[in-house]
């Protein structure tokens, strides 16, 4: 049994954008980790300023996630995981 060709080599614009959105969704938590751990490099400082920084990062992550979730929400039934899961 020969496998049917899995995926076309080039994708339509919409699908391409959707794929990149999934990439971004995967990268977002990594960015979050970096930003949240960043203060550790500096060692310490004023609580008020750090609080502000933390909550800013937090809010930015939430907004980014909301944006991406909106992009990803229309369900795609095609093979979703190009990395094979």
């Amino acid at each position: 049994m020969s496998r049917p060709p899995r995926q076309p080599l080039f994708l339509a614009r919409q699908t391409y954008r959707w794929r990149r959105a999934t990439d971004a969704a995967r990268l977002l938590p990594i960015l979050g980790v970096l930003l949240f751990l960043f203060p550790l490099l500096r060692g310490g400082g004023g609580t008020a300023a750090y609080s502000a920084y933390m909550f800013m990062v937090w809010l930015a992550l939430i907004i980014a996630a909301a944006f991406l979730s909106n992009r990803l929400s229309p369900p795609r039934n095609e093979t979703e995981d190009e990395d094979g899961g």
Partner: protein
Amino acid sequence: MIPFNILVAVCVAYAAFLFAVAFVAERRAEAGQLGWLRSPLIYTLSLSVYCTAWTFYGAVGYAARSGLEFVTIYIGPTLVFVGWWWLLRKLVRIGRTQRITSIADLISSRYGKSNFLAAIVTILAVVGTTPYIALQLQSVTLSFSVFALEDLRPWVPSDLNATAIWVAAGLALFTVLFGTRNLDANERHHGVVTAIAVEALVKLLALLAVGVFVVWGVAGGMGQVADRIAESPLAETTFQGGRWAGITFLSAAAIITLPRMFQVLVVENADERHLATASWAFPLYLFLMSLFVVPIAVVGLQTQPEGANPDLFVLTIPLSMGAEGVATLSFLGGFSAATSMVIVASIALSTMVSNHIVMPLWLYVQGRGATVSGDVRRVVLMSRRLSIAAVMTLGYLYFRLTGGTEALAAIGLIAFTGVAQVLPALVGGIFWRGATKRGAVAGLLTGFFLWGYTLFLPSFGPGGVMSPELLQHGPWGIEWLRPHALLGVAGLDPLIHAVFWSLTLNTVAFLAVSLSGFPSPLERLQGAQFVNVFEHSTGVQGWLRGAAEAEDLLVMSQRILGSEKAQTMFHTAASGQGKAGYLPDTTPGFLEQLERELAGSVGAATSHAMVGQIVGRSSVSVEDLMAVADETAQMMEHSIQLEAKSEEISRTARQLREANEKLTEISVQKDAFLSQVSHELRTPMTSIRAFSEILKSDTPLAAEDRARYSQIIHDEAIRLTRLLDDLLDLSVLENGEVQLNTQTGDLQDLLSRAITAATASDGPNLRVARDGTTDPVVLTTDTDRLSQVFINLIANARKYCTAETPRLTIRVRQNKGSVEVDFVDNGDGIPKRSQSIIFEKFSRLGDRNAAGGAGLGLAICREIMANLGGDIAYVPGQGGAAFRVRLPLDVAKAA
């Protein structure tokens, strides 16, 4: 001040409100009006069971002690949700396709449905969660006591215990009522989830209200707050890198592995798309929950008296400022946080305990295995209810035993670490096909043990469970086994030390054992199903119930049952539900009936899988497949048996046909025999009559003619007599009625006498030669009959041998327990086509008058030999007619 009675009344009213919410939600769900009950908002809010009383009250206390570090508890879950595309999406999909009921079920299902593994996870979960439930009870009683301090009438401690009992009992009642309404794990607990969502709103509003009150009511705006922070002991934050990263990781792990989180996140998930909303909405919820924590802590530290419990600032600040409304709201928020956690945790735990510990034991005790009869459902429900009560009782007992101690306050992170031990097996199981059951067991047991040794047991304090000496110097004085400094790794925070050792060694054991083993077929299949879940399952679909589904079922049933029968059945079911048309609601009852109906055609397992495919949106599990295979095997066996039977029947038919043919043949032979006999009798009779008429006539005859005619009559009469004798003889022989006259004699003698007798009368000259052994062969048989055969054969040779100088060779040979006598002449022999009929009656070759016999001789010989236990056969290819008489020697001797 709020009197105690009014507080209790508020509490009871709030509880009654929650009951009502749950009840209404259940009602709506039953009526099929799901609507907002399954919205992403409800899902997101239900996830807030993560925020327990420990976080509601404790976050402020945490901030008052350690500053900003408290956010790590929320950052971990935020990262997991923001990264939902990695893990949560897969987890939820697996949960739906595999019909997962709990985290223990997920682990056991992934590793070949191992109940042992499920039991380990269940025990781990119970050990980790019971103290947590106790913590919730404690926070409720503490919050009551805060009001009690303000009350005029002083409370006694027994009041606190009574409060805890009442709260525990009320929670147990609620959970049993709304958490065990039905069995099917795919059915959502709509009532519970809705109530939890309401509670989530209450606690969020409460905390925000306190925050707003503190910032703008007490401190006087954000700017003022910043100043106050700068003046407070929390002004400077020093980041402890290990703790910061460690707790972030721990809370990220906990959001997935906590039994209650798994329950709302995966099991209660109604639609995969809700996860997309929750991916930002839940972090937003956490964000709002922690927004005012630092200001509250700072203001609390500055306004509350020295030594006040910072865990209760959320309550004590508004109370001390006289804002009773805010305080009451805050109290209800804390109450909500505590109760929602206890309710969901006990549902999750009871499912696990009942499915993986109680039911296997019950089935084992019953001894009959899972022969599902009606009452199993009742047993499962009962075991769940009892499990809920048991979990609640355990929590209460734990609270009574350790209540108020430091141990209980610290239990939050300790519990996180405990349940996080599931993480390697979980993540490994859904991303790595090589993960095996042995590996998971090894990892879990290692992690569980190290967690208990380095964190849980020491948390009871020196002298609690572990002696001070053990904590200080390790068991038996072995320093490098000290619970807080394994292998000499001292100087780490005890929590981080435990997290590091338990999870590292857990992962190492899991990987090493997985790599070295070979999984069972079921494990490998399940592994493939889990890891490649997106390739095996259909896309995002909701749990839509309705016409489309019923139509699919109808289409399928028509194919199997035939369209008329299927339509009748659907129509009947629809009108039974009071609906017109052919599409009934797919109620469990109807599905059960349909499944049974289909099972009649395709087998139970197949029909279950087919209906499940359409209704459950679930992929066929390996067990289903195995059941289907079993059924197919049974059917194949059945059809093989049928085939064998039909073969047997056709064999019998063939035998009957053969018998019939034989009978017809025999009947034909009989007819032929009769006509032969009458013909044979008729010929001599005719000549006798003719000649006797001549003799009787008056015509004078010469004397010699008279004599000749008389001779003819005489000869014919003799021939007639001989014929009748032969016929009589043959009939006796054929019917086996012959009386054998057994006596002992020598074969050589018999032959000699037979030769003499056969060659005595007039006729062609025949030279007889004797060949082979001349030793005496002693026989015990009917020698007269045997002689008759010999004489017949010799006479035949004499009569029919066509050679010019006829010669007969008689050869005697002893051969393997039998003696053979060959009679071979030098004539032309018998033509091949006639060889098969020479032993038949009246078979005569060539000119029948030539020999003057009736053609019964060889037939008689054959019958005689059969009666003597031997046989006679024609032996072709001997240079003439050759007959072989065989007589078994042993029979001959024995006879």
